[in-house]
Protein backbone atom coordinates (compact mmCIF):
# COMPACT_ATOMS: atom_id res chain seq x y z
CA UNK A 1 0.00 0.00 0.00
CA UNK A 2 2.89 2.38 0.68
CA UNK A 3 3.78 2.47 -2.99
CA UNK A 4 0.21 3.60 -3.69
CA UNK A 5 0.86 6.78 -1.73
CA UNK A 6 2.20 8.56 -4.78
CA UNK A 7 0.46 6.54 -7.44
CA UNK A 8 -2.57 8.81 -7.67
CA UNK A 9 -2.96 12.54 -7.53
CA UNK A 10 -5.51 13.24 -4.80
CA UNK A 11 -7.35 16.41 -3.82
CA UNK A 12 -9.57 16.37 -0.74
CA UNK A 13 -12.57 18.62 -1.40
CA UNK A 14 -13.94 18.48 2.13
CA UNK A 15 -11.89 19.13 5.26
CA UNK A 16 -11.75 21.49 8.22
CA UNK A 17 -9.15 22.97 10.52
CA UNK A 18 -9.01 20.81 13.66
CA UNK A 19 -9.59 23.47 16.29
CA UNK A 20 -12.25 24.36 18.83
CA UNK A 21 -11.95 27.90 17.51
CA UNK A 22 -14.16 27.03 14.56
CA UNK A 23 -16.42 24.33 16.02
CA UNK A 24 -18.48 25.20 19.12
CA UNK A 25 -18.44 22.86 22.09
CA UNK A 26 -22.22 22.47 21.95
CA UNK A 27 -21.89 21.00 18.43
CA UNK A 28 -19.23 18.53 19.59
CA UNK A 29 -21.10 17.56 22.76
CA UNK A 30 -24.25 16.97 20.73
CA UNK A 31 -22.41 14.59 18.41
CA UNK A 32 -20.83 12.79 21.35
CA UNK A 33 -24.22 12.28 23.02
CA UNK A 34 -25.05 9.70 20.35
CA UNK A 35 -21.81 7.81 21.03
CA UNK A 36 -22.49 7.82 24.79
CA UNK A 37 -25.97 6.38 24.23
CA UNK A 38 -24.52 3.64 22.01
CA UNK A 39 -21.69 2.71 24.38
CA UNK A 40 -23.81 2.90 27.52
CA UNK A 41 -26.36 0.53 25.98
CA UNK A 42 -23.53 -1.98 25.54
CA UNK A 43 -22.59 -1.63 29.20
CA UNK A 44 -19.37 0.22 28.43
CA UNK A 45 -18.26 2.42 31.32
CA UNK A 46 -18.02 5.86 29.73
CA UNK A 47 -18.93 9.47 30.42
CA UNK A 48 -19.66 12.28 27.98
CA UNK A 49 -16.93 14.33 29.62
CA UNK A 50 -14.31 11.68 29.01
CA UNK A 51 -15.28 11.21 25.37
CA UNK A 52 -15.39 14.95 24.81
CA UNK A 53 -11.89 15.30 26.20
CA UNK A 54 -10.66 12.50 23.93
CA UNK A 55 -12.10 14.21 20.87
CA UNK A 56 -10.85 17.65 21.91
CA UNK A 57 -7.33 16.22 22.18
CA UNK A 58 -7.60 15.69 18.41
CA UNK A 59 -8.73 19.27 17.83
CA UNK A 60 -5.47 21.04 18.68
CA UNK A 61 -4.20 21.91 15.22
CA UNK A 62 -5.21 25.55 14.64
CA UNK A 63 -2.45 26.22 12.10
CA UNK A 64 -3.14 22.99 10.20
CA UNK A 65 0.46 21.77 10.52
CA UNK A 66 -0.82 18.38 11.64
CA UNK A 67 -3.23 18.20 8.73
CA UNK A 68 -0.48 19.00 6.24
CA UNK A 69 1.62 16.18 7.72
CA UNK A 70 -1.30 13.76 7.40
CA UNK A 71 -1.94 14.89 3.82
CA UNK A 72 1.67 14.18 2.97
CA UNK A 73 1.46 10.75 4.55
CA UNK A 74 -1.79 9.96 2.74
CA UNK A 75 -0.66 11.27 -0.64
CA UNK A 76 -3.17 14.14 -0.65
CA UNK A 77 -1.66 17.04 -2.55
CA UNK A 78 -4.28 19.65 -1.71
CA UNK A 79 -7.30 20.02 0.57
CA UNK A 80 -10.26 22.36 0.54
CA UNK A 81 -10.83 23.83 4.01
CA UNK A 82 -14.48 24.57 4.71
CA UNK A 83 -15.76 27.14 7.19
CA UNK A 84 -19.29 26.31 8.31
CA UNK A 85 -20.80 29.35 9.99
CA UNK A 86 -22.27 28.18 13.29
CA UNK A 87 -22.11 31.64 14.84
CA UNK A 88 -25.75 32.57 14.19
CA UNK A 89 -27.31 29.29 15.33
CA UNK A 90 -25.01 28.33 18.21
CA UNK A 91 -24.04 31.02 20.67
CA UNK A 92 -21.00 29.35 22.22
CA UNK A 93 -18.66 29.92 19.27
CA UNK A 94 -15.24 31.15 20.36
CA UNK A 95 -14.71 33.34 17.31
CA UNK A 96 -16.91 35.58 15.21
CA UNK A 97 -17.26 34.39 11.63
CA UNK A 98 -14.99 37.23 10.51
CA UNK A 99 -12.30 36.11 12.97
CA UNK A 100 -12.71 32.57 11.73
CA UNK A 101 -12.20 33.76 8.14
CA UNK A 102 -9.04 35.59 9.21
CA UNK A 103 -7.62 32.47 10.88
CA UNK A 104 -8.20 30.50 7.69
CA UNK A 105 -6.53 33.23 5.69
CA UNK A 106 -3.46 32.85 7.92
CA UNK A 107 -3.43 29.09 7.30
CA UNK A 108 -3.76 29.68 3.56
CA UNK A 109 -0.68 31.92 3.67
CA UNK A 110 1.24 29.58 5.99
CA UNK A 111 0.86 26.55 3.73
CA UNK A 112 1.14 27.97 0.22
CA UNK A 113 -0.37 25.69 -2.38
CA UNK A 114 -1.68 23.12 0.08
CA UNK A 115 -5.16 24.53 0.64
CA UNK A 116 -8.13 26.27 -0.87
CA UNK A 117 -10.79 27.77 1.41
CA UNK A 118 -14.57 27.95 1.04
CA UNK A 119 -15.97 30.55 3.45
CA UNK A 120 -19.38 30.10 4.99
CA UNK A 121 -21.80 32.77 6.10
CA UNK A 122 -25.24 32.28 7.64
CA UNK A 123 -27.53 34.35 5.38
CA UNK A 124 -29.29 35.78 8.44
CA UNK A 125 -26.22 37.96 9.07
CA UNK A 126 -27.60 40.21 6.33
CA UNK A 127 -25.53 42.74 4.42
CA UNK A 128 -22.50 42.43 6.73
CA UNK A 129 -22.33 38.71 6.01
CA UNK A 130 -22.60 39.23 2.28
CA UNK A 131 -19.87 41.88 2.37
CA UNK A 132 -17.60 39.54 4.34
CA UNK A 133 -18.15 36.75 1.82
CA UNK A 134 -17.33 39.06 -1.08
CA UNK A 135 -14.16 40.23 0.68
CA UNK A 136 -13.18 36.60 1.18
CA UNK A 137 -13.27 36.09 -2.59
CA UNK A 138 -11.73 39.38 -3.63
CA UNK A 139 -9.15 39.95 -0.87
CA UNK A 140 -8.56 36.70 1.01
CA UNK A 141 -8.20 34.35 -1.93
CA UNK A 142 -11.04 32.05 -0.88
CA UNK A 143 -12.50 29.97 -3.71
CA UNK A 144 -16.05 28.99 -2.75
CA UNK A 145 -19.08 29.21 -0.47
CA UNK A 146 -19.80 26.71 2.30
CA UNK A 147 -23.41 26.39 3.50
CA UNK A 148 -24.74 24.55 6.55
CA UNK A 149 -28.54 24.47 6.16
CA UNK A 150 -29.15 22.52 9.45
CA UNK A 151 -28.19 25.78 11.19
CA UNK A 152 -31.70 26.87 10.27
CA UNK A 153 -32.03 28.00 6.66
CA UNK A 154 -33.13 26.52 3.35
CA UNK A 155 -30.50 26.45 0.58
CA UNK A 156 -33.13 27.86 -1.79
CA UNK A 157 -34.00 30.74 0.57
CA UNK A 158 -34.00 33.99 -1.47
CA UNK A 159 -31.74 35.47 1.23
CA UNK A 160 -28.99 33.33 -0.31
CA UNK A 161 -29.54 34.52 -3.88
CA UNK A 162 -27.13 37.49 -3.55
CA UNK A 163 -24.48 34.97 -2.45
CA UNK A 164 -25.20 32.79 -5.48
CA UNK A 165 -24.98 35.87 -7.71
CA UNK A 166 -21.53 36.54 -6.28
CA UNK A 167 -20.58 32.90 -6.84
CA UNK A 168 -21.76 33.14 -10.46
CA UNK A 169 -19.82 36.37 -10.98
CA UNK A 170 -16.61 35.03 -9.46
CA UNK A 171 -17.23 31.55 -10.89
CA UNK A 172 -16.77 29.73 -7.59
CA UNK A 173 -18.70 26.66 -6.36
CA UNK A 174 -21.04 26.23 -3.40
CA UNK A 175 -20.63 23.22 -1.10
CA UNK A 176 -23.53 22.47 1.22
CA UNK A 177 -24.00 20.00 4.04
CA UNK A 178 -26.51 17.21 3.38
CA UNK A 179 -28.06 14.89 5.96
CA UNK A 180 -28.21 14.60 9.76
CA UNK A 181 -25.49 16.21 11.85
CA UNK A 182 -25.00 17.19 15.48
CA UNK A 183 -28.36 16.85 17.28
CA UNK A 184 -28.19 20.47 18.42
CA UNK A 185 -29.12 21.43 14.83
CA UNK A 186 -32.17 20.93 12.60
CA UNK A 187 -32.15 17.75 10.48
CA UNK A 188 -35.40 18.58 8.69
CA UNK A 189 -33.72 21.02 6.31
CA UNK A 190 -30.86 18.78 5.26
CA UNK A 191 -32.40 17.17 2.16
CA UNK A 192 -30.69 17.61 -1.23
CA UNK A 193 -34.05 18.32 -2.90
CA UNK A 194 -34.24 21.61 -0.98
CA UNK A 195 -31.42 22.82 -3.22
CA UNK A 196 -33.39 22.16 -6.40
CA UNK A 197 -34.91 25.62 -6.81
CA UNK A 198 -31.56 27.36 -6.32
CA UNK A 199 -29.81 24.93 -8.68
CA UNK A 200 -32.46 25.64 -11.32
CA UNK A 201 -32.40 29.42 -10.87
CA UNK A 202 -28.60 29.61 -10.88
CA UNK A 203 -27.49 27.28 -13.68
CA UNK A 204 -24.09 29.00 -13.83
CA UNK A 205 -23.28 28.13 -10.22
CA UNK A 206 -21.93 24.68 -9.41
CA UNK A 207 -23.28 23.10 -6.22
CA UNK A 208 -21.63 20.22 -4.32
CA UNK A 209 -23.79 18.01 -2.08
CA UNK A 210 -21.57 17.05 0.85
CA UNK A 211 -21.74 13.48 2.18
CA UNK A 212 -23.67 12.35 -0.92
CA UNK A 213 -22.57 8.73 -0.44
CA UNK A 214 -23.73 8.71 3.19
CA UNK A 215 -27.08 10.50 3.49
CA UNK A 216 -29.97 10.67 1.00
CA UNK A 217 -27.77 8.74 -1.42
CA UNK A 218 -30.52 8.04 -4.00
CA UNK A 219 -31.64 11.67 -3.94
CA UNK A 220 -28.10 12.97 -4.31
CA UNK A 221 -27.48 10.67 -7.27
CA UNK A 222 -30.72 11.86 -8.83
CA UNK A 223 -29.76 15.51 -8.45
CA UNK A 224 -26.36 14.86 -9.98
CA UNK A 225 -27.83 12.98 -12.93
CA UNK A 226 -30.45 15.53 -13.82
CA UNK A 227 -29.03 18.90 -12.77
CA UNK A 228 -25.94 19.71 -14.83
CA UNK A 229 -24.62 22.02 -12.10
CA UNK A 230 -24.97 19.62 -9.13
CA UNK A 231 -22.13 17.43 -7.84
CA UNK A 232 -21.62 15.32 -4.72
CA UNK A 233 -18.73 14.54 -2.42
CA UNK A 234 -18.20 11.21 -0.67
CA UNK A 235 -16.84 12.62 2.60
CA UNK A 236 -18.06 10.83 5.70
CA UNK A 237 -17.65 7.40 4.13
CA UNK A 238 -15.43 6.54 7.08
CA UNK A 239 -18.56 6.30 9.26
CA UNK A 240 -19.66 3.25 7.31
CA UNK A 241 -16.34 1.39 7.09
CA UNK A 242 -16.85 -0.42 10.41
CA UNK A 243 -19.95 -2.37 9.37
CA UNK A 244 -19.22 -2.08 5.64
CA UNK A 245 -15.44 -2.34 5.06
CA UNK A 246 -16.01 -2.59 1.29
CA UNK A 247 -17.79 0.79 1.30
CA UNK A 248 -20.62 -0.43 -0.90
CA UNK A 249 -22.37 2.95 -0.76
CA UNK A 250 -19.43 4.49 -2.60
CA UNK A 251 -19.36 1.55 -5.00
CA UNK A 252 -22.96 2.34 -5.84
CA UNK A 253 -22.30 6.06 -6.33
CA UNK A 254 -19.42 5.38 -8.72
CA UNK A 255 -21.36 2.79 -10.74
CA UNK A 256 -24.32 4.82 -11.96
CA UNK A 257 -22.72 6.96 -14.64
CA UNK A 258 -22.01 10.12 -12.65
CA UNK A 259 -18.27 9.82 -12.07
CA UNK A 260 -17.81 13.21 -13.68
CA UNK A 261 -19.82 14.52 -10.68
CA UNK A 262 -18.27 12.61 -7.76
CA UNK A 263 -15.60 14.29 -5.61
CA UNK A 264 -13.25 12.73 -3.08
CA UNK A 265 -13.48 14.18 0.44
CA UNK A 266 -12.64 13.11 3.99
CA UNK A 267 -14.34 15.54 6.40
CA UNK A 268 -11.12 15.76 8.46
CA UNK A 269 -10.97 15.98 11.50
CA UNK A 270 -14.38 14.44 12.23
CA UNK A 271 -13.03 10.87 12.08
CA UNK A 272 -9.68 11.42 13.79
CA UNK A 273 -10.54 9.01 16.59
CA UNK A 274 -11.04 6.36 13.92
CA UNK A 275 -7.97 6.82 11.79
CA UNK A 276 -5.72 9.16 9.87
CA UNK A 277 -5.89 10.46 6.30
CA UNK A 278 -3.65 7.66 5.00
CA UNK A 279 -5.95 5.02 6.50
CA UNK A 280 -8.94 6.57 4.77
CA UNK A 281 -7.21 6.98 1.41
CA UNK A 282 -5.93 3.39 1.57
CA UNK A 283 -9.46 2.11 2.27
CA UNK A 284 -10.63 3.76 -0.94
CA UNK A 285 -7.86 2.92 -3.35
CA UNK A 286 -6.94 -0.56 -2.17
CA UNK A 287 -7.46 -3.48 -4.55
CA UNK A 288 -10.66 -4.40 -2.75
CA UNK A 289 -11.71 -0.79 -2.26
CA UNK A 290 -14.74 0.89 -3.81
CA UNK A 291 -12.75 2.61 -6.58
CA UNK A 292 -10.98 -0.56 -7.70
CA UNK A 293 -13.31 -1.25 -10.62
CA UNK A 294 -12.99 2.22 -12.12
CA UNK A 295 -10.71 2.78 -15.07
CA UNK A 296 -7.83 5.25 -14.74
CA UNK A 297 -9.77 8.12 -16.28
CA UNK A 298 -12.76 7.70 -13.98
CA UNK A 299 -10.57 7.28 -10.90
CA UNK A 300 -8.72 10.47 -11.74
CA UNK A 301 -11.99 12.33 -12.13
CA UNK A 302 -13.12 11.28 -8.65
CA UNK A 303 -9.80 11.70 -6.87
CA UNK A 304 -8.85 15.12 -8.24
CA UNK A 305 -9.99 16.22 -11.68
CA UNK A 306 -13.60 16.99 -10.85
CA UNK A 307 -12.77 19.34 -8.00
CA UNK A 308 -9.89 20.85 -9.96
CA UNK A 309 -12.29 21.58 -12.81
CA UNK A 310 -14.68 23.34 -10.43
CA UNK A 311 -11.84 25.34 -8.90
CA UNK A 312 -10.05 26.31 -12.07
CA UNK A 313 -13.06 28.15 -13.45
CA UNK A 314 -12.61 30.74 -10.70
CA UNK A 315 -9.95 33.39 -11.08
CA UNK A 316 -8.51 33.34 -7.56
CA UNK A 317 -6.41 36.02 -5.86
CA UNK A 318 -3.36 35.94 -3.59
CA UNK A 319 -4.21 35.06 0.02
Amino acid sequence: MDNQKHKYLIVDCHSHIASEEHTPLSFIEGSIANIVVSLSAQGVPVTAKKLTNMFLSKMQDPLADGLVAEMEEGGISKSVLLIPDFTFALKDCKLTIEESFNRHREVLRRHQGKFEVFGGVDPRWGKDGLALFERSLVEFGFRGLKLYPPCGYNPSDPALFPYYELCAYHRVPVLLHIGPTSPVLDFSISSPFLLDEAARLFPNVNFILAHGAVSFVEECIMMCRFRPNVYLDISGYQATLGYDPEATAIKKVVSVGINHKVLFGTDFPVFRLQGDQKTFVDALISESGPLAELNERERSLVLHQNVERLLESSVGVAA
Partner: protein
Amino acid sequence: MEPDAALDEQIISLIASNIAGKFKKVNICKQTSLQKELGLDSIGMLALVFRFEELFGVDIAQMGIEVNVAKLKTVDDLINAGRDILSKAQASQVS
Protein backbone atom coordinates in the same frame (compact mmCIF):
# COMPACT_ATOMS: atom_id res chain seq x y z
CA MET B 1 1.21 -19.82 30.91
CA GLU B 2 3.83 -17.07 30.69
CA PRO B 3 2.71 -13.63 31.96
CA ASP B 4 2.96 -12.14 28.47
CA ALA B 5 0.96 -14.96 26.96
CA ALA B 6 -1.69 -14.58 29.66
CA LEU B 7 -1.97 -10.87 28.91
CA ASP B 8 -2.28 -11.61 25.19
CA GLU B 9 -5.10 -14.03 25.94
CA GLN B 10 -6.88 -11.45 28.09
CA ILE B 11 -6.71 -8.83 25.38
CA ILE B 12 -7.84 -11.25 22.68
CA SER B 13 -10.78 -12.28 24.90
CA LEU B 14 -11.57 -8.61 25.36
CA ILE B 15 -11.58 -8.09 21.60
CA ALA B 16 -13.73 -11.18 21.05
CA SER B 17 -16.31 -9.89 23.51
CA ASN B 18 -16.64 -6.69 21.48
CA ILE B 19 -17.24 -8.31 18.11
CA ALA B 20 -20.77 -8.38 16.78
CA GLY B 21 -22.83 -9.85 13.95
CA LYS B 22 -21.20 -11.66 11.04
CA PHE B 23 -17.73 -10.81 12.36
CA LYS B 24 -18.20 -13.16 15.34
CA LYS B 25 -17.31 -16.08 13.08
CA VAL B 26 -13.79 -14.77 12.45
CA ASN B 27 -11.01 -16.78 14.03
CA ILE B 28 -8.98 -14.13 15.85
CA CYS B 29 -5.21 -14.28 15.62
CA LYS B 30 -2.51 -11.65 16.07
CA GLN B 31 -2.52 -10.70 12.39
CA THR B 32 -6.30 -10.18 12.22
CA SER B 33 -7.29 -6.72 10.99
CA LEU B 34 -9.41 -4.89 13.57
CA GLN B 35 -11.44 -2.94 11.06
CA LYS B 36 -11.61 -5.04 7.92
CA GLU B 37 -11.90 -8.47 9.47
CA LEU B 38 -13.54 -7.70 12.82
CA GLY B 39 -15.67 -4.73 11.80
CA LEU B 40 -14.46 -2.55 14.64
CA ASP B 41 -15.48 1.00 13.76
CA SER B 42 -14.62 4.09 15.76
CA ILE B 43 -17.25 3.38 18.40
CA GLY B 44 -16.13 -0.24 18.63
CA MET B 45 -12.55 0.89 19.17
CA LEU B 46 -13.64 3.33 21.86
CA ALA B 47 -15.61 0.58 23.57
CA LEU B 48 -12.47 -1.55 23.54
CA VAL B 49 -10.39 1.20 25.12
CA PHE B 50 -12.90 1.77 27.91
CA ARG B 51 -13.33 -1.94 28.61
CA PHE B 52 -9.53 -2.26 28.72
CA GLU B 53 -9.40 0.47 31.33
CA GLU B 54 -12.09 -1.26 33.35
CA LEU B 55 -10.45 -4.69 33.12
CA PHE B 56 -7.01 -3.50 34.19
CA GLY B 57 -8.08 -0.66 36.51
CA VAL B 58 -6.22 2.08 34.63
CA ASP B 59 -7.23 5.54 33.40
CA ILE B 60 -5.31 6.12 30.18
CA ALA B 61 -6.13 9.82 29.94
CA GLN B 62 -5.11 10.48 33.54
CA MET B 63 -1.82 8.75 32.88
CA GLY B 64 -1.18 11.22 30.08
CA ILE B 65 -0.96 8.48 27.45
CA GLU B 66 -2.37 9.16 24.03
CA VAL B 67 -3.73 6.10 22.30
CA ASN B 68 -3.54 6.66 18.56
CA VAL B 69 -6.37 4.53 17.30
CA ALA B 70 -5.26 5.17 13.72
CA LYS B 71 -2.12 3.15 14.35
CA LEU B 72 -4.01 0.18 15.74
CA LYS B 73 -4.53 -1.89 12.60
CA THR B 74 -4.27 -5.45 13.89
CA VAL B 75 -4.87 -7.48 17.03
CA ASP B 76 -1.11 -7.51 17.57
CA ASP B 77 -1.01 -3.70 17.50
CA LEU B 78 -3.63 -3.66 20.20
CA ILE B 79 -1.77 -6.21 22.32
CA ASN B 80 1.42 -4.16 22.08
CA ALA B 81 -0.44 -0.96 22.97
CA GLY B 82 -1.98 -2.75 25.94
CA ARG B 83 1.40 -3.97 27.13
CA ASP B 84 2.81 -0.46 26.78
CA ILE B 85 -0.01 1.07 28.78
CA LEU B 86 0.26 -1.49 31.57
CA SER B 87 4.03 -1.18 31.84
CA LYS B 88 3.70 2.59 32.12
CA ALA B 89 1.00 2.14 34.74
CA GLN B 90 3.29 -0.16 36.74
CA ALA B 91 6.20 2.25 36.38
CA SER B 92 4.12 5.17 37.65
CA GLN B 93 3.03 3.10 40.67
CA VAL B 94 6.67 2.27 41.52
CA SER B 95 7.81 5.88 41.20
